């Protein structure tokens, strides 16, 4: 066996030029596929990343029994929320973990009554982590010691005819199911270009929510934002040991339709990527076939010297494996390197469209993801194709009649 390996290795480097062509073809093909994967994942984050943050983060932690409650916004305080926040912030994938109170209520003024979701946030933390803080078009974001201050969306401001410093009545229910009514002053208006979504949520400071809804020092939710979509499972697994008495909800569970949309898109992209592998596979097969024909004389010589057809075949397969391995490693390194560069530099698409001007949730700049999983989804299939592709020429090589092959020009 060692002899075959040695022989195969020498054969590969004896035809240096041809080997370099095969390896560069493999490498270049894989590099492009890895880049494709990185781009697709990057699009996903550019289009959905901010939306998920605004809709409530990648992961939310609630008290046990939250999901089975009949209410849309049950006020169920968490018992040890600081522990969850600490543990989450220690994880590398976590961008931020913040404490919140979520409840439903009604905003009323002369224009009428409008159902809204009320979210109490820690302004000192979310001012830097929530995309909404960057989309304030009038006034300012909340601060920790705000009193009777509220941040509303432009959609709601339009419907209720509100400007900064205007007041309206916010009706809600305390944890003991008592009606709680309060006149709030608008301190800021956010706008991300989706009126229907902006109509649905108003923000107040956590301290204020705790007083209003009688939850002193308590919260009903820990919201965790991650670096990238798709890291939810890893993070949840890491948090598992301390999840007693808590339940978790990912954005995908909260918005199944969003997940379906994303999965369908990914499904289509996966389907496309299999065709891409097929194209690359054809290239590999072609090159290996050519490599064998070029070496017909050499094979004849091996045969004439007493190497059996089966042994010749093994030799060619080993060569295929070696070429495949070197090419795949080379390509993955190039591709991941390319993705690493564009994950920092980014592609700026905003110039092609003015959608980013008024659809603030969509980022015009796409940063590729590293696509490390492409080692398995790309590298492995191409490697297998290389081996399969080397089988056909290997079989043909082993079948040559030595005397004929020797005369082949």
């Amino acid at each position, binding site marked *: 066996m060692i002899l075959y390996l040695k022989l195969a290795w020498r054969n590969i480097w004896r035809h240096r030029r041809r080997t370099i062509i095969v390896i560069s073809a493999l490498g270049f093909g894989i590099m492009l596929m890895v880049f494709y994967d990185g781009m697709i994942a990057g699009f996903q984050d550019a289009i959905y990343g901010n939306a998920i943050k605004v809709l409530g983060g990648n992961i939310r932690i609630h008290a046990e029994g939250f999901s089975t409650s009949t209410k849309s916004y049950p006020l169920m305080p968490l018992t040890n929320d600081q522990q969850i926040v600490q543990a989450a912030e220690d994880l590398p994938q976590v961008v931020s973990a913040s404490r919140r109170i979520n409840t439903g209520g009604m905003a009323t003024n002369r224009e009428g009554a409008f159902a809204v979701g009320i979210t109490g946030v820690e302004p000192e933390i979310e001012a830097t982590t929530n995309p909404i803080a960057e989309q304030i078009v009038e006034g300012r974001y909340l601060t920790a010691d705000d009193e009777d201050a509220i941040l509303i969306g432009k959609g709601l401001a339009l419907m209720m005819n509100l400007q900064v410093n205007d007041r309206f009545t916010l009706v809600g229910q305390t944890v003991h199911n008592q009606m709680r009514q309060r006149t709030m002053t608008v301190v800021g208006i956010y706008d991300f270009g989706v009126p229907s979504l902006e109509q649905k949520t108003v923000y107040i400071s956590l301290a204020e929510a705790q007083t209003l809804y009688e939850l002193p020092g308590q919260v009903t939710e820990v919201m965790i934002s991650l670096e990238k979509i798709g890291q939810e499972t890893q993070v949840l697994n890491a948090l598992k040991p301390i999840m007693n008495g808590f339940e978790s909800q990912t954005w995908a569970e909260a918005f199944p339709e969003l997940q379906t949309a994303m999965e369908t898109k990914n499904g289509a992209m996966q389907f496309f990527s299999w065709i891409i592998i097929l194209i690359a596979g*054809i*290239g590999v097969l072609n090159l290996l076939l050519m490599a064998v024909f070029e070496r017909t004389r050499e094979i004849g010589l091996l045969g004439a010297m007493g190497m059996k057809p089966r042994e010749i075949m093994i030799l060619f397969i080993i060569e295929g494996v070696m070429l495949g391995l070197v090419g795949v490693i080379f390509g993955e390194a190039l591709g991941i390197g390319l993705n690493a560069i564009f994950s920092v530099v980014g592609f700026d698409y905003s110039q092609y469209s003015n959608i*980013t001007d008024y659809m603030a949730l969509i980022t015009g700049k796409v940063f590729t993801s590293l696509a490390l999983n492409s080692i398995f989804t790309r590298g492995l299939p191409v490697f297998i194709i290389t081996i399969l592709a080397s089988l056909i020429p290997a079989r043909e090589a082993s079948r040559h009649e030595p005397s004929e092959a020797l005369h082949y020009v």
Partner: protein
Amino acid sequence: MLQQFKLAFRNLNRNRRRSILSGLAISLGLALILLIAAITRGEMVGSIAKTIQLSSGHIQIRSSEYIEGKSSLKWSDLVADPQSIINTLEGSSPLNDLIQVATPRLNASAVVSSGNDSIGVQLLGVDPSSTANQPFVEGITAGSFLNQDDGNGIVIGQLLADKLQINTGDSLNLLVNTSNGDVSEQKFTVRGLYTTRTPSYDESTILMTLDKVQTITSTQDHATSIFILLNNREDADMVASAISGAGYEVLTWKDMNQLLLDTEELANSFMIIIYLIVLAITATVIVNTLIMSVFERTREIGILAAVGMKGRQILGLFLAEASILAVGGIAFGLALGWLVCQYFAKFGFAIGDMGINGEMLLGDRIYAILTGGDTLYLTILAFIVTMIASLYPAILAARLEPVDALHGK
């Protein structure tokens, strides 16, 4: 020139399997990008068609005071006596031929209260007899659509019904904002459930007769807009400019769906890089195959050069080979791509709702649409990329020294 093509054709024919595989790589590459383009376009065309049917129509006539997204019920923001405007439109013969249907509609915001929950919804007042309601009538899943003089009936989305756990025949309490800022509360009976296959729309839209919405919101004979569908949407600009009237604003589907049209533009610019990646992979296959074939035929090229063929002619020979490959591959790729697109145009790709955006209404299925423009553009792109890729091997062949080449170096 003809000579070179003859020679090129013979060379390709000599290595039939290799030529077919190379051509196949081009075919698959082209077919793939055609499919990607068709699905991207289908997604956008489908969502625009759906938005037109459900919410925007081809043309809307509104009060010039009307502010988008505000859903105001002030009389000055509404269209007074819409029926007389419609009568005028239908009385003018050139317009009447272009217009399929024109009907008044009134939007109002309301709150559904059930148990401890309150959910914000949009009321849509429609003329039950109008054919513009077709998408709802066809989408009835239980019960029946509204009757002309149904004073307390409503039709709600299947999803909203599931959320509230109610069925046809059940009653629902609605708090409706009125034109003077009061809120009027009334119980309604659910006559039917509908689905438009657009979760975000179905979850938040309740249908009621126009008369009833006018009564409950005290807007008398006013409507938010006159909703017009045309026989051909390309006539929109012409019809819009023909409809004139003091105090009215006439909007076309293009004005109202700017966001969608811009999204399409952004999606297309995203896609260019995907097309180029796919074509680059195809090009890798072609380049390497051609380079191999240059090396394999070094002696042959040497002979050609020795008998007086100029470098330029050898270059032409290889380019002729590449162009035959490209044309053959593209022809087959077009046929393959067209067939696959036909399949997806008929059966569609399943997809869920985008979920984040009420303005972007997407169906749950994408039908591929292959346009002549896309086909032409991508075919030319594929040909150019293939030809550029084959330049290097062709130059390599043209630069060989005759004497060295004869020795096979």
